């Protein structure tokens, strides 16, 4: 184990995240993990880690820390105006840090969540096989001031300096359209409600967090009541309570819920939503499963190519 960083300022919300806890939803334990899983997976590949390694999810602004040893890091996801020793560094590339280098995520320029991976991964306490912080479930806490971050040892393999060109990224940075699979309670909504949902524009409300994004926009009316007998759901579920304003469940979302769901955001587009901030507007487009699978496959191919470029160059 090696010394990684010391936190000078923890920022608004900085947490350890990996790809979540799998297999525990039957105990009512949310999946958790990186909100923008694509970005974390890419960050890990950029430093030669397994995709599942623990990284930092940095939210909005403020994280400042100092490197306690030389190491290889990568930053992906939103552009939070990262400076290394006061010099701006764009996301989606890896960097070699020297002892004493100071990283500062100053303020968001674009997106909401940046991911920082380090070669060897962060050593963080794991609960149920995952280090993803889920504070409400008593599984870890956001990083605090002065906290030392330790990193694991990596195999000896040289990783080239690498930057992913913007036009190679699978998600367009200005994408506002989220693709959805309709249902499973589409029939509980009026025709007008469904039209509103598919043609309207929805603004992200400030009460949005890692559990759920709350939206406001054209009202999505139910034929009858909004309540259903509680049933299992997953991140991406679009619940509509009685007031007709949709709520999209995210990584820390509950595993069972009692509101009718008009649709589910496809897996490939959840990272897009994870980078939206309150006040931004999104729209929905209904697609079939074939298109959803294809969109996910494109992301998988992107990650495969990325992994290959780093192994053979």
């Amino acid at each position, binding site marked *: 184990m090696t010394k990684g960083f010391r936190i000078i300022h923890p920022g608004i919300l900085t947490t350890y995240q990996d790809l979540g806890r799998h297999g525990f939803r039957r105990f009512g334990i949310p999946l958790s993990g990186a909100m923008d899983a694509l970005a974390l997976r890419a960050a890990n590949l950029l430093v030669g880690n397994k995709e599942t390694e623990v990284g930092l999810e940095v939210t909005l602004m403020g994280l400042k820390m100092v490197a306690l040893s030389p190491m290889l890091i990568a930053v992906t996801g939103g552009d939070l105006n990262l400076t290394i020793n006061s010099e701006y560094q764009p996301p989606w590339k890896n960097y070699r840090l020297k002892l004493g280098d100071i990283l500062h995520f100053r303020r968001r320029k674009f997106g909401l969540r940046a991911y920082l991976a380090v070669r060897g991964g962060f050593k963080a306490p794991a609960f149920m096989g995952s280090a993803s912080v889920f504070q409400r479930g008593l599984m870890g806490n956001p990083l605090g001031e002065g906290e030392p971050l330790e990193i694991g040892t990596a195999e000896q393999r040289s990783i080239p300096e690498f930057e992913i060109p913007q036009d190679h990224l699978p998600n367009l940075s200005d994408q506002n359209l989220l693709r959805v699979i309709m249902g499973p309670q589409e029939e509980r909504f009026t025709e007008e409600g469904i039209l509103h949902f598919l043609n309207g524009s929805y603004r992200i409300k400030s009460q949005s967090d890692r559990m759920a994004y709350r939206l406001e926009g054209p009202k999505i009316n139910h034929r009858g009541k909004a309540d259903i007998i509680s*049933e299992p759901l997953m991140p991406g579920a679009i619940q509509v309570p009685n007031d007709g304003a949709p709520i999209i469940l995210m990584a820390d979302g509950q595993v069972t819920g009692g509101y009718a769901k008009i649709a589910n955001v496809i897996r490939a587009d959840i990272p897009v939503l994870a980078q939206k901030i309150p006040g931004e507007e999104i729209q929905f487009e209904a697609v079939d499963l074939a298109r959803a699978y294809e969109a996910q496959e494109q992301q998988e191919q992107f990650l495969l190519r990325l992994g290959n470029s780093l192994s053979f160059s």
Partner: protein
Amino acid sequence: MTFPTYQPVGDQGVLVSYEEKIDPAINERVRVLSEVISEQNFPWLEETVFSYRSALIIYHPRKIHFPQVVEAIITIERGLTPAPFSLPDIYEIPTVYGGPYGPDLERVSEVTSLSLREVIDLYSSTTFTIYFLGFLCAQPYLGGLPEKLQVPRLDNPRLHMPAGSVGIGGIQASLLTIDQPSGHNFIGRTFLSLYDPRKMPPSPLKAGDRVVFKPISEEEIPKIKGKDPMSKKKVDP
């Protein structure tokens, strides 16, 4: 409509739903279906979750697509045999009723026209069944609340209720495993440890178990504080 139905949940899930009611036999079927599917070691299976009348089967879309998942579930569903009868675990949950521990006991008494004593007696003599663990952090969903004790949820949910709170929300009884906001009517509180993420499973309670909220006095809190619920006895067949 013929049940069960099979519907896509996004591009990773299949929702299997039975008749739209809260019923122990239906719940038993979704539980067994869920467990049998989990036991198959399907390489495409991510995990299964179930609730009152539905099971969610989560798959890896790179390994299988929706129609083949449905086919696999239908084969299992048709061959399903009732679970071998096993005696459920029954847990006595020591509960302090009223006062600061049950801020809504008086409201429940007013709405039901029962005395405080009668509310406590009826609630604590009821054997509740755990239908499933869900929401967040192993929250048990309890069935069996007597009709006389059904009280609508509060108009304004409280922003903070402590773990261990015991109450009533409409037709459901509730037992909070972690601190949370809630609109239920809370009539008592236990001080047992009901959720520990360092343990596997994180809660000793499980679907199919029975719970009874046995009244204790305030003075007895130190004796139970932080302890695990103990399954006291098995129910006679």
